[in-house]
């Protein structure tokens, strides 16, 4: 049996068909791996988490309801939650950076446009634990602070402050990148 389109793959996965599961891994593996890297920050561990994600996806694929959203969104949500499960919530609460950050950067729109996804991902990856997750949830996934606070077991204020600092760090990192690249 050949699984050409996503609907056939989903149907095959619901029947616990190995070929369908393999096809889903082939189709979505790279994308979900990128999400795992963004949240875990370590590529080797991200691979482990990705395996867990797929096992979970195969287990709960019956619960996927196309009326509620697209399959990709469902995969994203499941993957993000799986990544967050690996985090030590206590550590997230205790990490507070007390460093002075550079707020003012000259950001040339041309330079911003030239930034590649890999470069941005590398900078996100290097964000500290706790800040990285808040940044991803807020900026990339578009979660509200209330949702983030609930997911990470934080206070809303803490989520806001972490996001603010994460953004500042990202600017600093990209600024450094910009300096590095352009001189």
């Amino acid at each position, binding site marked *: 049996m050949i699984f050409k389109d996503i609907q056939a793959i989903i149907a095959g996965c619901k029947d616990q068909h190995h070929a369908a599961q393999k096809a889903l891994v082939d189709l979505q593996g790279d994308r979900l*791996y*990128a999400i795992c890297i963004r949240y875990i920050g370590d590529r080797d561990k991200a691979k482990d988490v990705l395996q867990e994600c797929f096992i979970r996806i195969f287990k709960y694929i019956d619960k996927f309801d196309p009326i509620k959203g697209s399959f990709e969104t469902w995969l994203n949500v499941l993957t993000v939650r799986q990544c967050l499960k690996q985090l030590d919530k206590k550590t997230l609460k205790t990490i507070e950076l007390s460093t002075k950050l550079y707020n003012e950067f000259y950001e040339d729109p041309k330079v*911003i446009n030239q930034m590649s996804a890999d470069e*941005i991902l590398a900078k996100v990856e290097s964000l500290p634990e706790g800040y990285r997750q808040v940044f991803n949830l807020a900026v990339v996934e578009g979660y509200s602070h209330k949702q983030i606070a609930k997911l990470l077991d934080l206070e809303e204020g803490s989520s806001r402050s972490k996001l603010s600092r994460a953004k500042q760090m990202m600017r600093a990192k990209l600024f450094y990148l910009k300096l590095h690249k352009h001189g």
Partner: protein
Amino acid sequence: MDKNRLEQKIKDELTNHQVPIDKEALWNNIHKKKKNRGLFFWLSGLMLIAGMGATILFQQTKNHEWVKAEPITEHKDLNENGTNQSQTNASQLENENTKDADKNEDPTNPAKLLQTKKLLNNQEIQNGHQQAHNQEISIQTKNPSAPSLNQESNSSNFKNTNGLNTQTNKTTFPIPLNKTKLPFKEHNASATTIDKVKEEDFAISLKQVSSIASLPINFLTLNSFSEFPPIKFSPVNIENRKVEKSKNVKGFYFELLGGYALINKKMSSETATDLLEARENMETPLEQINLGFNLRHQIKAGFYLQSGLIWSRLSESNNYKELASETKLEGGHVILEITQPNSDVLFQTGEALVTYDTIRTYEVYNTYDKWDLPIGLGYQKSFGKWCIEGDVNFVLNLNHTFKGYLINEELDKLRKGNPFAKRIGLRTFASIGAGYEFNKKLTLWLKPNFDLNPWKVNVPESLIEQTYQNYGLQVYARLKI
């Protein structure tokens, strides 16, 4: 505006960004994990069922078959005179017995102590509760119808050919005696004199059992990990900054374990206080070695479940001193008293059965092999390469066997049977320890452990109730699967 543009740019770039990964390897790992997970659940379920089955089985099976000291009754009529003598001297014996009884009213009387200990021993044998620790093996029992006849006032210590230290009390019996066969090599007392046991002869020289020294448990000092390393942030050092990440990644682990423990044995009795006192002074703590494996599932937020199979060998080496008696035929004893018409009394001598009361010293080595099924729940925390964890485990005993040896007898005098109860009480233990992650696959752990409850080992109707409690140290090699 610039800020929003940057964030939008990041979102656009990352939302559907892909990072190539080796799909074949990924799929193979997923497949392997799924298989392992299934295997783990099957094994856990199987072990649980096996444990429950074994427990039920042991509840229903009577496996306390000791090699009992079967009494062999031999009636030897030495001579007719002897028999008649027993009848003619009946009233005289009664008088002497009455005197003895009066003497025995004194609780400090050594003869009474001897009788008490003997009665306890015999009672235990009759009840079939000869446990490994109850080394009061029935030696020989004196015929109750022929008590302390013709006891004389000499006592002697001697060493027999087996090198056993014995003290003797010699009593003549011109009447047939019941003889009980020893479960071990018969003691050849060769005393030729009639001895009377002094108080100190019966006093068992008991060595004090040293109370178990509780093992010091050194907890890993975590102060060095308690603070997050100071962070210096600047555009220049951003690249070099590394933050420790949590290692609470889910997964399955296989671990091999080995350990050593001292077992604190506690005994109690409401009735057999003499026996209890004697045993408390003679018995030493047991030692245990164990080997086994665990399958372990790391679940949410550092918590894990584990189960496996553990083989343990408990051993104890004790020196026992025991009251014993033996009977032998000897000549030269007065067997008949004849009063002549002129009031002269003639004594007729001849062979008579003589019973010697002795104190035997012998060394016993007992081993108990146990197969246990532990089920545990714990919590693990990682700090870089180092980890700490603590867990609580419930241990179901699946099987246990006993072997006992008399060391200073022939080694083939293997004592059979199982002194433990059909079902050893549920054991719960806690352990806390530290581990070091050598690589992604292998972590080595050192974990002191201690039993939370003393677990009962013997049958409920036993004269002396025993409980064991372990204090030990375990080493684990944990492999990620």
